[in-house]
C-alpha cells in the first residue's frame, strides 16, 4: 500500500492526463460553474439521484462522474443521500408506473428552491419504453428544468448539463 500511496504522490494526477478535448471542456466548465453556482447557491450544489426505471446504464455514467477523471466534487457538486439535503434531483429512466409515486414523494421531500434534471433519453421522453408499464418521461410527473440527452449521456455531457442548469438557476435568483 505504501508504494501505491507514494506513487500517487509522485505521479501526475490522472485528472490532468485526460484527452485535450475533455480537458478544455472541463476547465471551462469549472470556471463557469464557479461563477454561477456561487451566485445562486454559494459554493456547492447537492444532487440527489433518482432512478425512475432506468436500465442502469445511466447510473453507471453518473457514477463515473465521481472517478478521478471527472472528479465532480472539485466543482462543488456532490451527491447526497437524502432528498431533504438536495438542491437538484437528477432523474433517470422512463418513469415506470411502479416508480411514479416514489418519484413524486422524493420531489415533495426536496426543499425549495429545487431543480430537476432529466438525464438520458428515457427520462427525456423517448418512446422506446412505451406500453402499460411506463409513464414515459419525467416531465409527465414533475416539472423538469433541464434535459440531458444521450443513451446513456456521457459523464462530460452530464457535467455540461449541470452547468447549463446552474446558469438558469442563477438567472432565476
Amino acid at each position, binding site marked *: 500500500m505504501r508504494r501505491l500511496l507514494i506513487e500517487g504522490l509522485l505521479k501526475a494526477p490522472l485528472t490532468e492526463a485526460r484527452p485535450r478535448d475533455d480537458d478544455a471542456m472541463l476547465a471551462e466548465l469549472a470556471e463557469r460553474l464557479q461563477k454561477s453556482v456561487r451566485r445562486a447557491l454559494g459554493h456547492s450544489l447537492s444532487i440527489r439521484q433518482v*432512478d425512475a426505471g*432506468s436500465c*442502469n*446504464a445511466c447510473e453507471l455514467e453518473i457514477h463515473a462522474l465521481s472517478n478521478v477523471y471527472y472528479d465532480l466534487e472539485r466543482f462543488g457538486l456532490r451527491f447526497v443521500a437524502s432528498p431533504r439535503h438536495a438542491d437538484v434531483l437528477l432523474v433517470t429512466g422512463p418513469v*415506470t*408506473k411502479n416508480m411514479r409515486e416514489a418519484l413524486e414523494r422524493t420531489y415533495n421531500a426536496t426543499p425549495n428552491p429545487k431543480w430537476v434534471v432529466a438525464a438520458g433519453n428515457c427520462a427525456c421522453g423517448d418512446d422506446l419504453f412505451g406500453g402499460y408499464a411506463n409513464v414515459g418521461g419525467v416531465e409527465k410527473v414533475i416539472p423538469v428544468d433541464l434535459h440531458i440527452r444521450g443513451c446513456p449521456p456521457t459523464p462530460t455531457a452530464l457535467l455540461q448539463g449541470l452547468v447549463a442548469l446552474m446558469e438558469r438557476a442563477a438567472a432565476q435568483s
Partner: protein
Amino acid sequence: MSFATTLLELGARIDAHQTGPRVAVDREVWWRVALEVAQGNVTLLALWSDGRDVHMAVLDEVEGEVSVVSLACPNGRFPSVGRTHPPAVRFERAIVDLYGLVAEEATDMRPWLDHGRWGVRHPLGAAKPDAAAGLPYAFLPAEGPPLHQIPVGPVHAGIIEPGHFRFHANGETVVRLEERLGYVHKGIDGLMRGAPIARAALLAGRVSGDSTVAIALAFARAVEAAAGVEAPPRAQILRAVMAELERVANHLGDFGAICNDASFSLILAHCGALREQVLRCANAGFGHRLMMDRVIPGGIARNLDEQGAANIRALVAHIRRYLPHLVRVYDNSASLQDRTVTTGILKPELARQYGAGGYVGRASGRAFDARRTLAYPPYDTLRFEVPARTAGDVDARVWVRIDEITQSLSIIEQCLEKLPNGPIAIAMDAALAAAVGQEATTLVEGFRGDVLAWVRLGPSGTIANAYIRDPSWLQWPLLEAAIEGNIVADFPLCNKSFNCSYSGHDL
C-alpha cells in the same frame, strides 16, 4: 441416458426450435420434470410464458445441454413448480401477474411485478382495466419479542437502482431480509411482441445496461440460430472482445465499490480510474463507452480498426501491470479483510439449488460457466480457466472477480491475435423471411452470470415473442439467505458483492 433423450421420449419435439430440444409435454410430465429439478438432477434456468404455453428451461450440467419443456395451458392453469422447487416461485408470480395464468397449488400467491399501478391487470393476457390505486403488500413475518423492522427503499441512499428491502433485526443482527422488487418493470416482454428485430435488439440491449453486450449477444445469437445463420468469424471474435471488456469493466467497478462499502476508498479510486480507461478504450474502438447496440443480429455494428486494437492491447498490458498492486493492498489490509472474510456466506447447496451463475455461484463452489460448458464460439477455440472457490463469503466473490479479470485479459489478447479479416455482419432479411415461426434458446455468459434468451420469429422481420432471463432472477433470493445472521451494517457490502440487477430482474 441424458435428460434430453428421456424428455424426447416423454413428449413431442417442437421442430421450430433450432437449439437443443424444446418438448411439448402433458401435465404429468411437467410435474415429473419439476421433481427432477427439485431433486437437483437438472438445473432450472428459467420459467416463463408466451401467454399460451408455459416454458421451463433446464440445464443438464453433465451433458452441457439446455432443454425447454413446454406445457400448453388451455384452461389458464399449470402445476406450480415453485411448490417443490423454491427458485421457481418468483418466476411463477411474474407469470401470474403478466399473463393471468394460475400456478396451481403455488405456495406464494402475492403479486410480484404488479404493484397495482399499471391501470390494468394481466397486461399481456386477458387484460382487465384496474384502478391503479396500488396493491398492499404483506411482508413475511418474523417472530420474537425483541425484533424490529427496518424498511429501506425503493429510493436508496446512493446512486443505485430502486427496490425495497424489509429487514427484521434483532438488535444489529438480521433475522430476515425480504426483497420487494418490480419497481423498474418496463414491460419488456410486452414491448418485444411484434417488434421489428432492430427495435427488439435495442430493447434487449437495455434490459440491464451494465450487461448490455452480454444480453444483446444472447438475443442476437438466438435470432441468428432461429433464422439458421451465423455471424461472420470476425464478428464472433470481436463480440468476445466486447463481452470480455464489459466483464473487466464491471468487475473492476465492483471490486472498488465493495472495498468502498468497507470504507476503504483507496481501492475504489484506483479501480474507478482503471474502469474509466476501459470505457474510454471501448469508446475509441467501438464508438460507445458501454458498447451499447454494437452487437446486432447478424454480426456487429462497428468494426475495430488497427488503432482500436492497439489501444486495447495497451489497456490489457496496463491493467495486468497495475491490478496486482491493488490486489496486494486488498489482501494485506486487515481492516478490509475483517469486513469481507466470513461475511455474507452463501452455502454451496443453495448456490447449486438455485443454479446461481457468475461470481455468486463460482464463489460457492458452482463452477458453471456458459463459455466453458456450452462452449459457444469463439470460446471453443480459446484457452481460459473458470476460477471458483468454496468459502461463499464476500471475500470469495471478490477473489472470483479478480481471477476472472485476469482470464478475460488473456481472452482479449487471444482474440486480437487470431482476429481474421472479413465482413463484420451478414444481411439477415432473406433468412428471416424464410424463418417465420422458428425459435431458439441461447445461453451467454455475462459478467454477472449466464443470460438466457428465447425468441420466436414473427412475419416480415419481427419478433413474435421473446424472453430474456438475467442471472439476477436466481441470485436475488440468495442474497436474502446470505445476509441472515449478519449485522445490518454489513448489508451494503453483501449486496454489492452480489450486485444483482434490478432492471434485469424487473424487465
